[in-house]
């Protein structure tokens, strides 16, 4: 079998993409940039835990700078949204396609999540 080897775990490469989180100016919420996956799961879950503890009716998750969210990351979002008291919701702004796809397939109509593409 012929294989083209990519530089792998032991080869030189760029550092793994992280997940950076910033407070939003003027509204309750955060802007995140990077990727949500196994290496950044704890950061993402921390963001969501904090968001659940807030009191405002709407909490913004600005995700235009997030390029990927895996299934566990989508699941953490769905679980956090499920903990919101009635009347509260997350507005998830400009999420990566993978997150929308996973939410549609595995958590259709999840209460507490409003996806906004604008």
């Amino acid at each position, binding site marked *: 079998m012929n294989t083209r080897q*990519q530089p792998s775990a032991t080869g030189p490469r760029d550092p793994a993409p992280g997940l950076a989180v910033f407070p939003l100016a003027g509204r309750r919420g955060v802007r995140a940039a990077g*990727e949500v996956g196994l290496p950044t799961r704890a950061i993402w879950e921390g963001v969501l835990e904090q968001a659940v503890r807030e009191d405002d009716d709407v909490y913004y998750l600005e995700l235009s700078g997030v390029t990927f969210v*895996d*299934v566990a990351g989508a699941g953490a979002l769905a679980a956090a949204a499920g903990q919101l008291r009635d009347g509260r919701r997350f507005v998830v702004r400009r999420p990566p396609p993978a997150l929308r796809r996973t939410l549609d397939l595995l958590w259709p109509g999840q209460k507490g999540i409003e996806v906004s593409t604008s």
Partner: protein
Amino acid sequence: MTSTVTELFGPLDPFVHPALFYRDEQDYLDGTLPFVREGLEAGEPVAVAVPGKNLVLIRDALGDDAAAVRLLDMREAGRNPGRIIPGVLRAFADAQPAGRRVRIIGEPIWAGRSDAEYPACVQHEALINAAFRGRTATILCPYDVERLPEHVVSDAYATHPTVIPPGSRAEQRSDAYAPEGVVTRYNEPLPPVPEALSFAFDSDSLPHARHVAVGEGARLGLVGVKLDDLALATAELTTNSVVHGGGSGVLRVWAEDGYVVCEVRDEGHLADVLAGRRPVPRDQRGGRGILLVNLIADLVRLHRSDSGTTVRCWFAR
């Protein structure tokens, strides 16, 4: 939750799972229409998931009654056999009121299923017994005995506890019924690949594995949602390798006919034969990786061996 083969294939009652053998359209309608009508008359929820041409036959013959039946083209909904239990059968059955028998016609195997698809198809048929054991449901599986190869019909005797011969409505017990044997026998090594991009990954290089797969998928012609799906599948399978499969694995990506194929191999042992085929309760955290892969891929094949687990996924270009 894990389930080994031997624990899963006990008595089915009250689940009923006959194969319906048919030679032509008349046999097909004689075998399927009364099944649907009896269900409707008894107030039972009825779904029909069969290839498009047969779906039209049933729909037209039902006339106005078709509106009361959930109709699905199995060539779409069940293109990946691993999707059928969670995405079609359980999705329908679980949405019905408890206690009432659910009737489904499911035709997952048709003439023209490829050699790559067939082992997944027949394993699916065997696993229906494990997935629906103890449930109040009847799943009737039509087989085109005129056009399907002999070994396919012979396998249907092993995956169904009863069969209905062509032109008959009487269920006969199948003495060859042995679903666990089918699951094992079709756990075939995956065919060798002539040329593929290969990337060894561990926890440090997990994100890179996905980037490599997406880069190669795009180069080989995947676009849009299919490329997103390749990224999701790669992420789930490689993360499984790191978390459950010994901490590392090898990703390979290549083109095959009209598909981009990605494969993840690791040294883990996936004991649960229903992994990725159970709907997951909404409030359960985790356990959805292989389920998602089954829902989005055009075909998923899995090989378990003493040395590890290999999962191969096809995405149409």
